[in-house]
């Protein structure tokens, strides 16, 4: 579903690459946490999957597409298979909840009939069925994130990328969001979530990929936020001290 083959990404003007020879594979239906300090390469990782960036070295395959050679004009059509959620929600303030979700479908040319069916379904799924005429500023943070999630999944994407979706939310609200993401995952969508939230990672017991300075130092089934078992990948001499709190 997502495969990285020794992918490196260096931004122009920097000596240290944001990602350094990263190889991994994420399968259909997995729920994966991406953890690591700020600047460890999580965002670059997500941007590479979205094809907002292209790798400096190595090959990336997502949904059977070889992203290195995907022409720019085909990128929009590729992105229609991905859903994305951000820490800051990124809702349109002058559109209602319904219109925010419908906007996604409108701009990719879905019919009015399809939108009238799909949007209420998505809003019901995230638990906002009664609030479709509200504006984002009338909603709580958790509700706004639910709108953002509805928007991300309304087109039934195969992969959902979440960049610290609970970063702005309190623990109780975060738990609600996680339940929602878990439900989306159970329906077959692969979920890849970058997070700093130790509590959530420890509690969910899902696959954890840890990045330090652009390298994978841990890829653990049913892992926690901090390593509790012997790391699967060894040879990165400095990681144990860096991982320590």
């Amino acid at each position, binding site marked *: 579903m997502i495969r990285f083959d020794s992918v490196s990404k260096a931004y122009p003007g920097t000596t240290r690459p944001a990602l350094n020879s990263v190889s991994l594979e994420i399968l259909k239906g997995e729920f994966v946490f991406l953890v690591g300090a700020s600047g460890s390469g999580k965002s670059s990782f997500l941007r590479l999957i979205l094809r907002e960036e292209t790798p400096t070295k190595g090959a990336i395959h997502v949904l059977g597409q070889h992203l290195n050679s995907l022409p720019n004009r085909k990128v929009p059509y590729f*992105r229609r298979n*991905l859903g994305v959620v951000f820490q800051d929600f990124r809702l349109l303030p002058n559109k209602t909840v319904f219109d925010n979700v419908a906007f996604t479908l409108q701009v990719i040319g879905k019919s009015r009939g399809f939108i009238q069916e799909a949007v209420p379904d998505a809003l019901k799924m995230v638990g906002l069925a009664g609030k479709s005429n509200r504006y984002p500023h009338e909603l709580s943070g958790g509700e706004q994130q639910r709108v953002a999630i509805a928007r991300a999944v309304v087109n039934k994407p195969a992969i959902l990328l979440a960049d610290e979706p609970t970063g702005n939310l309190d623990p109780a609200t975060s738990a609600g969001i996680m339940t929602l993401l878990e439900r989306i995952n159970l329906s077959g969508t692969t979920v890849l979530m970058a997070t700093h939230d130790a509590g959530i990672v420890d509690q969910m017991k899902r696959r954890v990929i840890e990045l330090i300075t652009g390298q994978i130092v841990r890829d653990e089934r049913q892992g926690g936020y901090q390593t509790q078992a012997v790391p699967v990948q060894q040879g990165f001499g400095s990681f144990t001290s860096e991982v320590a709190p």
Partner: protein
Amino acid sequence: MRLGLILGEAGNGLRRNVSMVISVILVTFISLTFVGAAILLQMQIGQMKGYWYDRAQVAVYMCTDVDDTGNCSQAEATKTQIDAVEALLNSPTLKPYIDKYEYETHEQAYQNFQDQLSGSPIASLVTPDVLNESFRVNLKNPDDADVLIESLSGQAGVQDVQDQRGYLDQIFSVLNAASATAIGIAALMLIAAVLLIATTIRLSAFSRRRELGIMRLVGASNRFIQTPFVLEGVFASVIGSVLAGVAIVGIVQFFVQGVLVQTLGTTTTLVGLGDALTVVPILIVVGALLAAASASVAISRYLKV
């Protein structure tokens, strides 16, 4: 559905940016008015050339007994000298260049002079014998006048050989200068218009960068993202072009056909409403294309995937 959405987006952009849109309209209006004026001036020059060059002749003036310029020595050209010139005009060297020629006698010259200057005090002072007799030569190609001038200037009894187009060239150079000025101003104004359209579109895109970001994220095609902005630019610019077209038609209708025709009378032909109406679509197409091009370039920065 999509068309409605695209038009709606374009309409939103126009509404949010009213003052910039008005400035785009005005700048396009003025620049294209100059473009139109330049085109009309060129049309005018073309028409005058067509009109006058057909009538312009090479005049071979024969001596009178008051001339001492050219090959004259205050003696009337003799019949032999006149026949010699006529023989040259009919010779195989010159004949191929000549369409037709006629001989103007003292009396005909006097008659033409009186016709042209009737009412002027000078008309009464002139007697037939001081006006040159002349061959009026129409050339097949007016550009060959030099051949005639070279062959005939040296002939005995010839006072002067003149290409009448020389008089017209001065008028044309003035008109050409005016036309070049109009083109220069038009070019500067068009640069201003293009930059202003680009700036307006960038502003519009900047104020909608959230939408644009989300559109790119969810996979809206570049064409879909781009079209409302291009339409915005084209809409403003086409309004300006139409205004410029109206101005051009107005200038021709009220100034050229109204004032100039009165002043100049029938001395020359002037551009008419038909010419103005051919310029209008040119202006609209130029305006639309420029706006579309500059808007597409301006928005391309927001389309990088």
